């Protein structure tokens, strides 16, 4: 009987051993001999594409090869397009693309996906200690509902003032205007008026043919920040709070310069106007720094090499220093345990100070770990090759220390409210501008403007 048991035992263990050999191999979840392919969508295109490509190639060749992960980029698009693609995929619309494993996304996209239970909790891939290395507000922004971390901070940004320094210096030289005038919105309005006159004199043309000075990429963001700076909330109960006296200050800042042509009213990005020299000052996201090229092209294809100054976000007079916290992070789409684990490994590596600094020094995004934001950035700043980005990082450090950061709320109607608000504002301004232009043929500028303003009345109420 005993021998029987022994023989049986031997036979079974032989079977198991063979099974082990032929079947599973490798450690725990991943197997370097059978790498798992992770697809990624991102919005770091154009000049940032090169850096992203380099980083991803490096990951594949080092950590990826070691652990058995291959990262493959399957879409590089603007954030709006990515949002559309992801929503299509979430709704399973006909012709919708397949979900990637990782994607960059803004909170408004992530919320839609999270509500459909499509996102993985990235927090599960990190220990508490690891998470403590990240700037807490950035993590907080990624926790959409409760504890789950749905958006991992990879590329944060804020809004800053980009100034075509080359032209501004010429302008400042001829007038009393200086960079300190750009610290407040009221100062910008004043500067814009002066600039208009100055450019008008430069061309030697008629008095009312000057150039525009300034544009804000997002009037909505500007309004939100202005309210916070002046101690109020623009969005109350998910509706626009237009009855506040703050609104009239914003309106004052915007309406007159817009009508008079000191401030651009344009549907596209401010950077497009900077590229052609149509404006020389813009309020935009730090992430857009690479869209302000060092060459400005005029209508006659004359190019000029320019330098930029990057200044902190302006403040309304008497207001506190508050700026927007923006930027997208990366979300992990729920799939298999292996893929989610692999995605976590990539995110960890990608946001490690060394890689994070490489990324931001060629893109203009902000660091996401406390370490990177701190000493390291000050040290590494000298090594940044792009002068605009170098300046931008300096301004970012300054703002990080002196400003409060405001997280815009996220809710379903947010997008629509934003679009509606900007559309109406611009429409009113453009209409008034047209009227103003017509009146200019018969009267002087100030009178013309007063007439238009009276006719228009104070702009009240919108977007309900």
């Amino acid at each position: 009987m005993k021998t029987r048991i022994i023989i049986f035992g031997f036979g079974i263990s032989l079977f198991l051993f063979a099974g082990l050999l032929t079947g599973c191999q490798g450690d725990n979840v991943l197997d370097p001999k059978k790498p798992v392919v992770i697809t990624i969508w991102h919005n770091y295109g154009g000049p940032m594409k090169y850096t992203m490509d380099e980083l991803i190639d490096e990951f594949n060749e080092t950590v990826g090869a070691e652990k058995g992960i291959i990262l493959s980029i399957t879409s590089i698009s603007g954030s709006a397009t990515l949002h559309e693609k992801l929503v299509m995929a979430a709704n399973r619309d006909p012709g919708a693309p397949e979900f990637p494993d990782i994607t960059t996304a803004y909170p408004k996209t992530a919320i839609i996906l999270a509500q459909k239970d499509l996102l993985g909790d990235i927090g599960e891939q990190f220990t508490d200690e690891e998470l403590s290395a990240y700037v807490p507000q950035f993590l907080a922004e990624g926790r959409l509902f409760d504890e789950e971390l749905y958006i991992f901070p990879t590329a944060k940004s804020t809004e800053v003032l980009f100034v075509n320094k080359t032209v501004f210096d010429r302008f400042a030289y001829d007038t009393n205007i200086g960079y300190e005038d750009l610290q407040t919105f009221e100062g910008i309005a004043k500067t814009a008026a002066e600039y208009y006159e100055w450019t008008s004199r430069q061309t030697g043309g008629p008095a009312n043919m000057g150039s525009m000075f300034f544009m804000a990429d997002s009037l909505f963001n500007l309004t939100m920040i202005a309210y916070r700076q002046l101690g109020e909330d623009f969005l109350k109960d998910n509706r626009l709070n237009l009855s506040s006296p703050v609104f009239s200050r914003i309106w004052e800042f915007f309406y007159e310069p817009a009508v008079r042509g000191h401030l651009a009213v344009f549907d596209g990005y401010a950077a497009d106007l900077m590229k052609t020299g149509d404006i020389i000052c813009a309020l935009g996201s730090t992430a857009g720094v690479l869209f302000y090229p060092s060459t400005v092209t005029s209508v006659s294809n004359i190019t000029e090499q320019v330098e930029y100054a990057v200044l902190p976000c302006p403040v309304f007079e008497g207001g506190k220093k508050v700026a927007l916290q923006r930027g997208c992070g990366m979300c992990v789409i729920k799939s298999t345990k292996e893929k989610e684990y692999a995605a976590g490994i990539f995110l960890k590596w990608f946001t490690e100070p060394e890689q994070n600094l490489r990324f931001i020094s060629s893109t203009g995004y902000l660091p996401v770990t406390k370490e990177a934001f701190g000493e390291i950035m000050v040290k590494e700043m000298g090594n940044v090759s792009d002068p605009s980005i170098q300046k931008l990082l300096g301004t970012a450090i300054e703002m990080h220390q002196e400003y409060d950061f405001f997280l815009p709320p996220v809710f379903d109607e947010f997008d629509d409210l934003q679009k509606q608000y900007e559309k109406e504002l611009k429409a009113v301004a453009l209409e008034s501008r047209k009227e103003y232009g017509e009146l200019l043929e018969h009267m002087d500028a100030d009178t013309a403007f007063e007439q238009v303003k009276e006719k228009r009345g104070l702009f009240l109420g919108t977007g309900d």
Partner: protein
Amino acid sequence: MTVNKLEIIKQELKKTSALGLSMRLKLFLFLMVLVVVMVLGVIVVFLLTGTFTAGLGMNEKLFSDNLNHAFRSISKQYGQLSAQAVEFAGDLSISMENTLREKGRTVTDLQDHPEILEDLLTGEYQRALFSLQRAKSSGVFIILDATVNPKLENAADSRAGLFIKNMEPNILSASSPTILLLRGFPGIGRKNHISMHAQWSMEFDTSSAPYYRIPMLEATRQKLSLSRLYYWNPAATLPGTSEEVMLCSVSLLDSKGNVFGICGFEVSAMLFKLAHMPDSSTYTRLFCMLAPVSGNGLDTSGAMFSGGYSARSIFLQEQPLTIEKHRRFFFRYTEEGGNTYLGFHLPVEMYPRDSAFYDQKWAVALMAPAEDIKNSLAGFNFRLAVLFAVLMGLGIVISVFLSRLYIKPIIEGLDKIKSEVLDDASKTKIPEIDELIEFLSARLHEKSSRESQEKDLSSTMLNDFIKNLPTLSPAERAVFNLYVRQHTAKEIAGILCLSINTIKTHTKRIYSKLNVSSRAELLLLINMLKEAGREFK
């Protein structure tokens, strides 16, 4: 020490050959022979059906399937784009010539009247956009042989035009801005509400632009129809951009045959990658490639790639890949000083036979790093080997077990037989042994009954003998007694002083009375009596 052991083994073998192998061992060996034969049989079947090389064969099928698929999809995409580029060029040429004519100009006036460029190009924006979307291409371009500011320093290498990019050609209806202006007048972008690409500039830098010069040159030199003049430029990164693209350019000709520019479509690296992705479930680093053929190799610097793995980074020095046949199955592609790949390739016709560029050869290739294929084969064969080892091991175990199981009852049965307790209760449930037991049992009964029968018989005989003894006459009795004392007839004659014939007569009578037939029988019975301890007098 070992010598002793050898001696011992020799002794054992001798003993064994003398005695023969035990049943159990023999059975085990027979079973092992069976197992070995079966396993060998399986191996032979595998060999005949080519399962060992099935690893390679599977590879070949996988590769050729993927290659054919990639070949078809690439041919289709490039063929369609070529046709659409030709059509676009034809329509554009006519349209532009007409627009110019309405302004009292011809295409030859473009260089001297740059002020008409912006309007001309603005007027063609819609057509370009429509063609772009119809072609599902990543970009459409028009380059005119003129510049907006001929007085500038680099004017000779700056050409006016229009380049519209579609960042997502596969999205059917996009309300988000996937269309960007990469080159062209800013007014066109603003008028049509499209944003400028981050790397926008107003005109094209044609200082080293084969995609611009080559088709224009050929169109001037040869009088061929547009469909024979389109040119596919190998993959390159346009100055000031970050992505590798292939451009299909067709010349713009007016009705008099003057060449005044080019137009065409773009296939970006991302579009190519997404459109022709091979199935990388077996080999993760499998990728396909559209590459110009140069000599005996493929030129990777001008190639487009598609694969899950970032193939771009594999080709470090962008050396050409030399092609050689590798054993029976694959082609081997070697990078000088670099890696080796195994795969297949097929020549692909990018141009019609009488095209001006027919001599430009291209191929579609599908390959994976050589080590991946070798590893997977080794893995496959290793698993087979392990399987066989397991089968053998299992065979041994089962043989041992079965032989034991089989022999045990037999041994028990034999023991039983040896014990001679052969009653009905001790059945072994082995028919043959039970039969033997029955047989032996019967024989034993027979023997003992025969013995007892014999005993009975001899008992009866003895009783008769004793009964008949007194019937002997005194003279006969005297002879009888002397016979008992082992005397011969002659001796008895002498002792009794009788004649031998008298003795013989007496003897005959004795025999008849005692019912025996010979002296031997008589003596036997006497002995038996003596042994039985029976007295007789």
